[in-house]
């Protein structure tokens, strides 16, 4: 069995998509790990109402924790010069205004860029939508970070979604533990492969057809 990317490496590769000056929302799960790799000059937004805050506090750094400085995932952040607080209406105005890049986790992405992110409970009574639909619809550029396959080996990059839709035609880029895939009007383009993997091997793990880019390359960190 070949090695796939660790979560940390996946986050490092994904963070390269953020440029100084970008405003970026980092969703819960894998995207949160990007926080420590965001380049200087980029500004992170949290949908509960904070912009431009400092690094997260480690779990054993109790004296630095402030009950009123939490991000959307409930992690404590440190203050930073120039940060701003606002109410949730303003926050989602920012999100829908198309000014933010958005990094979200994902359960499935289709070749058209449709996204399924919120899972349902067994009875389908309790969709865990949160802010994911707003973030997916409103993002200036939407990057999905996920494992390439489910724990039982099924492809998460699919022809058509089989899970409930969060938003249609919204994904721009998919970064998995195997590949970097761009969603184009002509389908999915394989841009980068995880070191040690060939494009054929990645296609074998992927339900949707991938067009291999002319300049396909090995991922760098």
């Amino acid at each position, binding site marked *: 069995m070949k090695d796939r990317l660790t979560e940390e490496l996946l986050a490092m590769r994904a963070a390269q998509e953020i440029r100084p000056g970008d405003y970026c929302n980092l*969703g*819960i*799960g*894998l*995207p949160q790990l990007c926080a420590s790799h965001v380049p200087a000059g980029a500004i992170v937004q*949290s*949908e*509960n*109402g*904070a912009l431009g805050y400092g690094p997260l506090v*480690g*779990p*054993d750094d*109790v004296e630095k*924790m*402030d*009950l*009123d*400085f*939490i*991000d*959307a*995932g*409930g*992690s*404590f952040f440190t203050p930073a010069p120039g940060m701003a*607080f606002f*109410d*949730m*209406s303003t926050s*989602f105005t920012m999100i*829908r205004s198309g000014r933010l890049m958005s990094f*979200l*986790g994902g*359960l499935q992405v289709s070749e058209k860029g449709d996204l399924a*992110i*919120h*899972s349902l*409970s*067994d*009875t389908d*009574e*309790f*969709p*865990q*939508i*949160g*802010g*994911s*639909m*707003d*973030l997916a*619809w*409103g993002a200036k550029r939407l990057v999905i970070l*996920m494992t390439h396959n489910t724990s039982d080996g099924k492809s998460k990059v699919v022809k058509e979604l089989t899970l*409930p*839709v*969060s*938003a*249609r035609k919204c994904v721009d880029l998919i970064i998995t533990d195997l590949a970097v895939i761009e969603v184009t009007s002509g389908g999915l383009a394989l841009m980068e492969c995880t070191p040690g993997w060939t494009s054929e091997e990645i296609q074998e793990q992927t339900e949707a057809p991938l067009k291999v880019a002319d300049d396909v390359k090995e991922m760098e960190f």
Partner: protein
Amino acid sequence: MSEICTADEAMARVHDGDMIAAHNWGISGSPGYLFRALVERGVKDLTLCIPNLIPLPEGFVERGLTDPTILIPQLKKIISPFFGARGIMSRFSEAFFDTLAKEGRLEIEASAHGSLMERLHAGAMGLGGVYSPVGVDTIVEEGKEKRTIDGVDYIFERPLRPDVGLVKADKADTLGNLVYRGSARGANPVIAMASKYTIVEVFDVVEPGVLEPEMIVTPGVFVDCVVRIPDEDVYSEKRRPELMQLLAEVMLARGVQSEAADIEGGEE
């Protein structure tokens, strides 16, 4: 003009069948002191409109802290984008919600975070609702009017005008002007504006003129009743370090950084 009163006095304004709105994103900014008073008031058939329903981890409830799930026995309907945090120890498991819903005792309405805010905002402004592009082609659009405006598809979202808003702010003056602290602001200012009767819990009440006019986020016109959390209460400002210590202990024991690790899931 806002009244300064006790939580019990304020709760006399809540009646059976009312729609209640409150903020929740973990402990910070969520009116736990008022939740407790609402339980004591004992009203029923309430509709709760809330951004998240996040149960507190074990160890908090024993110390007199509450979360919005404590209200569940008094509810007939919940309007919320997010229920519980999967896998987090809770008094009310997801299975408990499922059972209640299956038996028809609890109606659930899912609404995206941003849409919920604008429904409240519309209610506050006296508007008849909003057309939102969020949720088109998803479970959220079921039963709603769809309309294409300038080539973009929208779904119609009805306004929300809660009977009572339970708000948490940092400080109030005696006129009801409010200031918030950090990310505790959340949905509180929107709820204060949208509700027909707004009750606020604060750490401190000061004289007019003490709060800088430019720093006031919610003007007193939106506030009906201000409740100062008593110093001896676990929710008081005085006892906040204790709360922080408890939270840190729970987090260390769990070995994770997050109070609500899987909001907006994505990861199974």
